[in-house]
Structures are given as structure tokens and as C-alpha cells.
């Protein structure tokens, strides 16, 4: 893009400000004027931008066009489940009877909202095969923290304070070890075996009376369903530990298996992934924590219960709750969207999700495995990992270069360099909402890029070519942090 045009577009709000303009209409004062507090309490000046509504709309609309998004682009970002977000969900969540409710209203005045939450609790327990749930955690990582705090509370209640060790596979998301640490645990990394499963021998060697639990993502971030999972759960349980399931990849299991039935004690579900709360450029999400009965008393508050005789719903706090995860009842707006999604699809629709997601991923695997090396050559679930190691060795082309070249073809890059255990990883998750045509286009593009890597590697190294910015200097950003507008930047 032409630098001059870019500079105009990129001018910040404060640099667009003109004294005397305003972007909102303000209601007049309709009560008799009241005395003001003493001057020393009052703010003398506040610097905020002054722009008209039309200027603001043009600025933010223009900026929005610098984003790739699901509604515009294929977005096979592995492990993030970037599937289509149904529009009806947003419409339901913005209904007045949903969006205007105050969180501290008396329970008798919000029976509809509580009923909705109660039904969602039920559906999520049914889908996962668990017994009990709290919708309170406000993101996946928050659900993990809740689950880890419950694990801690459980062992302390059993007079097992020495159980301080949480095992986490080397393929795990970074939030897992970070959440375990926030709950006061020591993190021990569990290696994967040659098939991408948890290494059973290593697992046996690391369980003992200090084990608090295992935190495992199923399918793993390698896109693989651990074929030893029953044995894994058994080993952990026999050692007195709990099995925690990171539900980040739950999309591929819907209707195929219930985690509660194969030995998981606690899981969380990222509603923004599996149940389509739009990702919003990085939130909001919701991460309900879902558990087996023996842990119910530790659930974070509040939980919705139904008094069948009175046919009334109320919020309660379990007896030995780990506490509250946020000021109110969780991210209700996100809960409503998940509810709307489950209601729309019902049993028949929910059942079809995993199959289509898994077919799409395996189709990509089968069509590209001769072009890109598979990290593990076996049937995958909803996502597939390739390694660009050979491109790196032979042509000096990295996973990053391949990913950036995809942008030129209008496709969002896959997740790169994750999972950490695969060199030059490209983690591709197509999701069930993409058509065969889109996936065929992606496959063709990936083949073309493979050829370009051999014949015209500069094309990849300089990619992307048609975006508002070329590759950015991340080192400069970290070395000299410029994190806000300041008047002296105004030049």
C-alpha cells in the first residue's frame, strides 16, 4: 500500500481531534442543579478526542477492513476452531430481555435468564457426560484455573496436601501450565511418544503420592485422539490423581465420545470455540467448568438450581466453593449464544459437527501429505499438523514464510510453531463449516506454494504483498515499547 494513504488511514483518534466536535448526543439536565463538591476533588481537564460521529464511523470502518475474519476469509487457525458464527446467536444475545438485564436483580425478576442458564448447564453436562457444572469462568484459561483450584481443594479436603504435582503433556497449550501455577501447583512436563500419544512409560514413572492430577487436551493439539486414553486415566486414578480435560478441541468429539464416560473428572469447554461465540479479535469467551459429582461441592459460584415444586430457579453457592471467578454470573452474553446454537442444532445437528470437521481435516491430510511432511502419519481428528522442516533445510523457507504467503491468496495463516514439539509446525484446522470447494482451493494454494518455495522462494520470504503492512518489526516493538498515544508523538 502507498505510504501516504497508509499514514492517513493510520492517524490516531487524538491526532484527528478538533476542539468543539462531538460524536454523541447528550441528554439535558432535567433536575434542579445540585451543589458541586469542593474544587480539590474535581478534575480540571480531561484529554479525550473530539470528533463527529461521521468521522468516527469512517475511521473505524476503514480500520476494520485491515482485518481478516471468518466472515471474509477461510481461517484454518489450528486449535482455535474458527468456525462460522451463526447470526441468529448475536440477534438473540442482543434482545432487550437478555442484554438489558442487571446482574443484581432479584431472582424472582430474572426467571427467564436463570432458566436459560439452567438448560445450558444441562445440555453441556449431557454433551460431555459429566454430572455438574458452573458457567462462571469467563474464558478457557479461567475454566482451567477453576478446575485447578478445585483439584487443590479436593486434595486438601482429603488431607493430601503433599499432592502438589500436575502432569502436563509437552503438546499442551501454554495456558495449562500457567493455570496450574496460579493454583499453586508444580508443573511436570509429560513427553509424547512416537505416535503422538502420551508416553505411557514416562507417565507410570512420574506418578506417585505427590501427584495431584493430569491436565490433558483430548484430542491433543497434534490433532490426535490418544488411543491409550483409558489406560492413561487409569494410571492417574490409581495413583490418587484427578484427570483434567482441556476442552479446547471438544468440537471433534461432539456425539462421538463423552469425556465423562472415559475417565475425566474435570473439564472445561471453550464455548467461543465449540459453541460459536464470535472470537471478537480476542474475546470475550466463556469457559464453563464441568465435573463429576464427587467434586460438586467445590464448584465456583454461582450455579443455577431448579426448585421443581415451586418451579422456580435460583442461584446458589456450593458448600465448599473455591469462590467466585468474576463479579457476577459469568459471561452471560456468550452463554446465550452457546445456548442458541445448541437449541438451533439440537441432537441431530450437534451430532454432525464432529464428523464433518474430522472429514475435512483428514481430506486435507490425504491431499497434502505428499507435499508437506506429516508430523504423525495417522488418522487425525479435527486438525492436522505438517512440518515445514524440509523446506527450511532445502530452500531456506520457514513455516512462517509459507503461512505469510497464504495471505496473498486470501487465506488466514494456520497456527505456526505450535505445538512446540513439532519443528516448523503448521497446525491446520478447517472446521465443519467449510465447503469442499473452499478446502479444494486451500489444497491447490498449498500445492502452488510448495512449488513457489522451490522455484521462487523470494515470493514467500517477502509475503504478504497486498496487505496494509508488510512483515512488522516485532523486536523494535519490544525493545522500545510505544504503548499509547502521547502528544509528543504528534508530528
Amino acid at each position, binding site marked *: 500500500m502507498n505510504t501516504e494513504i497508509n499514514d492517513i488511514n493510520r492517524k490516531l483518534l487524538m491526532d484527528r481531534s478538533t476542539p468543539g466536535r*462531538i460524536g454523541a448526543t447528550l441528554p439535558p439536565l432535567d433536575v434542579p442543579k445540585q451543589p458541586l463538591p469542593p474544587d480539590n476533588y474535581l*478534575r480540571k481537564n480531561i484529554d479525550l478526542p473530539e470528533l463527529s460521529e461521521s468521522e468516527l464511523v469512517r475511521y473505524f470502518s476503514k480500520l476494520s477492513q485491515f482485518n481478516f475474519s471468518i466472515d471474509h476469509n477461510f481461517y484454518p487457525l489450528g486449535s482455535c476452531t474458527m468456525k462460522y458464527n451463526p447470526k441468529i446467536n448475536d440477534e438473540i444475545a442482543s434482545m432487550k430481555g437478555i442484554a438489558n438485564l442487571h446482574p443484581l436483580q432479584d431472582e424472582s425478576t430474572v426467571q427467564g435468564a436463570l432458566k436459560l442458564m439452567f438448560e445450558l448447564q444441562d*445440555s453441556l453436562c449431557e454433551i460431555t457426560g459429566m454430572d455438574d457444572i458452573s458457567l462462571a469462568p469467563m474464558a478457557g484459561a479461567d475454566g482451567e484455573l477453576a478446575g485447578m483450584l478445585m483439584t487443590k481443594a479436593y486434595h486438601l479436603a482429603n488431607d493430601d496436601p503433599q499432592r502438589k504435582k500436575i502432569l502436563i503433556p509437552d503438546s499442551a497449550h501454554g495456558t495449562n501450565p500457567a493455570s496450574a501455577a496460579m493454583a499453586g501447583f508444580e508443573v511436570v512436563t509429560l513427553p509424547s511418544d512416537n505416535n503422538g500419544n502420551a508416553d505411557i512409560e514416562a507417565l507410570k514413572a512420574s506418578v506417585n503420592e505427590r501427584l495431584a492430577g493430569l491436565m490433558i487436551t483430548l484430542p491433543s493439539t497434534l490433532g490426535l485422539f490418544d488411543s491409550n486414553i483409558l489406560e492413561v486415566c487409569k494410571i492417574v486414578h490409581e495413583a490418587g490423581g484427578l484427570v483434567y480435560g482441556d476442552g479446547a478441541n471438544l468440537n471433534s468429539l461432539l456425539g462421538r465420545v463423552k469425556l465423562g464416560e472415559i475417565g475425566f473428572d474435570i473439564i472445561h469447554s471453550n464455548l467461543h470455540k465449540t459453541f460459536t461465540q464470535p472470537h471478537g479479535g480476542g474475546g470475550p469467551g466463556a469457559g464453563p467448568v464441568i465435573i463429576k459429582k464427587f467434586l460438586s461441592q467445590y464448584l465456583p459460584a454461582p450455579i443455577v438450581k431448579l426448585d421443581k415444586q415451586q418451579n422456580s430457579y435460583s442461584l446458589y453457592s456450593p458448600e465448599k466453593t473455591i469462590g467466585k471467578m468474576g463479579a457476577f454470573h459469568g459471561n*452471560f452474553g456468550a452463554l446465550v449464544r452457546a445456548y442458541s446454537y*445448541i437449541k438451533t442444532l439440537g441432537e441431530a445437528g450437534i451430532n454432525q459437527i464432529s464428523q464433518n470437521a474430522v472429514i475435512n481435516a483428514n481430506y486435507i491430510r490425504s491431499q497434502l501429505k505428499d507435499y508437506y511432511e506429516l508430523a504423525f502419519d495417522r488418522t487425525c481428528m479435527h486438525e492436522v499438523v505438517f512440518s515445514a522442516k524440509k523446506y527450511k533445510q532445502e530452500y531456506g523457507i520457514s513455516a512462517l514464510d509459507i503461512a505469510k504467503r497464504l495471505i496473498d491468496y486470501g487465506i488466514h495463516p494456520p497456527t505456526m510453531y505450535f505445538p512446540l514439539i513439532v519443528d516448523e509446525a503448521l497446525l491446520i484446522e478447517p472446521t465443519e463449516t467449510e465447503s469442499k470447494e473452499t478446502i479444494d482451493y486451500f489444497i491447490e494454494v498449498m500445492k502452488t506454494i510448495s512449488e513457489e518455495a522451490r522455484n521462487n522462494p523470494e515470493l514467500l520470504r517477502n509475503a504478504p504483498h497486498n496487505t496494509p503492512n508488510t512483515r512488522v518489526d516485532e523486536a523494535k516493538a519490544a525493545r522500545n515499547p510505544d504503548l499509547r498515544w502521547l502528544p509528543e508523538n504528534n508530528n
Partner: protein
Amino acid sequence: MNTPNNSEYISPYIPNTDLDRRKMLQEIGIDSIDQLFKDIPNNYRNPKLNLTKPLSEFELKKYVEELCSMNMIPGEYSCFLGGGSYQHHIPAIVNQISSRSEYMTSYTPYQPEVSQGTLQTEYEFQSLCCLLTNMEVANAGMYDGSTALAEASLMSARINKKSKIAILNTVSPTYIEILKTYTQYQGLSIYIVKENEIKLEDDTTCLIVQNPNFYGNINDMNKFSKIAHENQSLLIAYTDAISLGMFIPPGDYDADIAIAEGQTLGVPTSFGGPYVGIFTCKKKYVRQMPGRIVGKTVDTNGTTAYVLTLQTREQHIRRENATSNICTSVALIALMSTIYMASLGKSGIKHIAELCYQKAHYAASLINKIPGYSLLSDKIFFREFAIKCPKTPKEINKILLKQKIIGGLDISNKGENLMLLSTTEVNSKEEIDHLVSILSKIT
């Protein structure tokens, strides 16, 4: 076992047909979908899923409308509830822009070349939060105000390696609960201090003050700042974003970390979430901050660009040694707040703050005159105030509800009937007068 692939139901969100699937399976080299799931133990595969029948859009809307009819909805009822979530008018531009799918359906901006929209608006959010609070730096957003406060106290302990958190007794009891949840296994202890007899213990990492406090009163923040700093503790201020249009901001009283609930800035109350936590601090502490931070840089052509930065603090790089496990920055809600702040601007935010103040004082002065009712405190307050009542708030609210009024929050304590009332620009004089006239009949 059910075989859902044979189901006649056609999902509007799955484009592939049976024919597409057959072709793809052929290419994969298998003849049944079930073969793709063979790693799942046989006995547990394809369990029965007991969910309701699919609803059409029309049926779903009708069903949810029925649920909504079981709710009493602020707007249809006049509402005087606050306690951490406040009704403010949301300009149309906020929803129109934030619901653009370019913003709504994109992910965390890991790929800066295709995420400059999100990144630049996040940088704007950080900038406007700094200007509003007069603090030096801000992050891109936390879950909500209450968890931002908990994270602030963890950050404080990382900065000065002290282990006791002092919290003023006028901080919302809910926030104290959340603080306990997040700090319970971090080797930190919490103690409550009273406003008029503050004595900070040794090894106190921070003093937490809410301003305006839970009861709506404005504190003498310079006094608390002095007390904290004389004890080599940090001052953490939990402030109200709208109040900063009128009252002195945390940067002016030397707060080390300042937190606010972003909900008041253009975000619906939505039964408690999603909201966004505003997190600001002094520049020297930026590397101990939790959460996403966006920085300004250049691209290979030397053109201005924005990018996620200082990521070595974060979980995806530092894992168990990260400053926090947080992954989200609640970007969409932060965007709503950004548009709100930009839309109201310099004069608008002041005007809205003053309307809140004026209406609260008008309401308080009238209620204070009703026999049996009196203001709990004679201190300065902003948009919220506590009143002593002649009956329990539960009884009073029940009567108010019949008059289409959602009354105040019950904060009764030790046998004293106390109600916390809040007014904003959406509460008209007529509504306030109606409230007062009903209250004057309940004595």
C-alpha cells in the same frame, strides 16, 4: 448406537452434502466415517446424545421471547441498581461498528499483517484508558474489573516481593471474594483495614482502595496514597470510569496500578457479562503486567504498524512462569468502550458524569427528607448512595416492583436496613420523583 450421518437433518452451518462427503472419504481412502474415529475406544464410541429437537430460527426466537417474558427488564421498569454494573445509554454507533464482522469474527491478532484493524483499535483503547485515568500505560483488557483487581494484587506482589494485601473495608465485598479466589494458593494473605484507623503491617505489598467506594462515596485519595507509599507499599486504585469525567483521576494521586470496570463505557449490563477490565499502571512496572499489550512499530517498508508486544510475559511463551494465565483481552468489548470514549469525547464524558452526579444528589436529597429515611453518610458521593430505610429493602423492593420500579441493592448490615441506590443519565426526573413518591408511602 445411532448413526447420525444418516440423519435427514440438514444443518445450515455445514455446507458439505452426502455426495461431497463420499468423494472426500474416497480420497482419504476409507469407506466409512466411523473409521476416522477408530482411536476412540469402541465401547464408548457414538454415545446417545439426549438433546432437544432442532429449532428453526423462528421457533427459537419465539422460545427465547417466552423466556424473556419471564424477566422484568430495566428500561421497561425504571431501575436504580448499581453495585458494580450500571445502565448507561449506549450510542448507536457503538453497536453498529462493533458488530461489523471484520471485528467480531476475527481472532487474537497473532498475524499483524491481517489484523491491523484489531491491533490499532486496541492501541487506541490503551491510549484512551491512559488519558481517562491519567496513568502512564494500559494493557488491552482483562475479563472484568473484579478480576483485573485480583491480577493487580498478584502483580504488586511480583513487583515488591511482599506478601500481605491490605484492602480498605469500603471495597465491594464481591471484589474481596474474587481477590480471595485468585490469590488463595499464592502464599499471600489479605487483611482488611478501616478507613479512619489505617495501620499498614510490615510486608504489605499493596493497599487497595475503591473510589468511589462500594457505598458510592468519594475518598480523599491523596491521603491513602501517602499512607501506602510511606509504608513502601503500592497503591492500587479501583476506580469508576465514568466518574473520571468529573473527579480527579488515579494518575493525579500517584496510584501505582489503577483498575476500572469498562462496562460503564458503552457495554450493556447483560446480566453480568461480558465486560472488560481496564488495567493501567506506572510505566516502570509494565513488564510485570498481565494480559495482552499492543505496541507501535514499523514494517519492512518503514510504515507504521501495530503488533502484540512484550509477549515474553505471557503464557504461550513463558508457560508456568508467565505473569498470568490470561489469554483473552476481551477485544470486542474493549472495542465497544473505545468507540464509546471516542464518541463522547472530552466534553461528553464530563457531561454524563455530571448528569449522574446531579441526579443522584437530587434523588438523595429528596429521599433524605422522607421521614424514616436518611443518608448513611454525609460524605461526597458520585452516582450511588446508601440510605437507611424504615423497612427491609426486601419489603420495600417488593412494593416498588409492583409500581414498575426495580429498587436498590440490599446491603443491610447487623440489623440496620440499608439500601444502595444508583442513578445515571437514563433515570429521568419523572422516574426519580415516582420512586420518591412511592418510598414516602412506605414508612
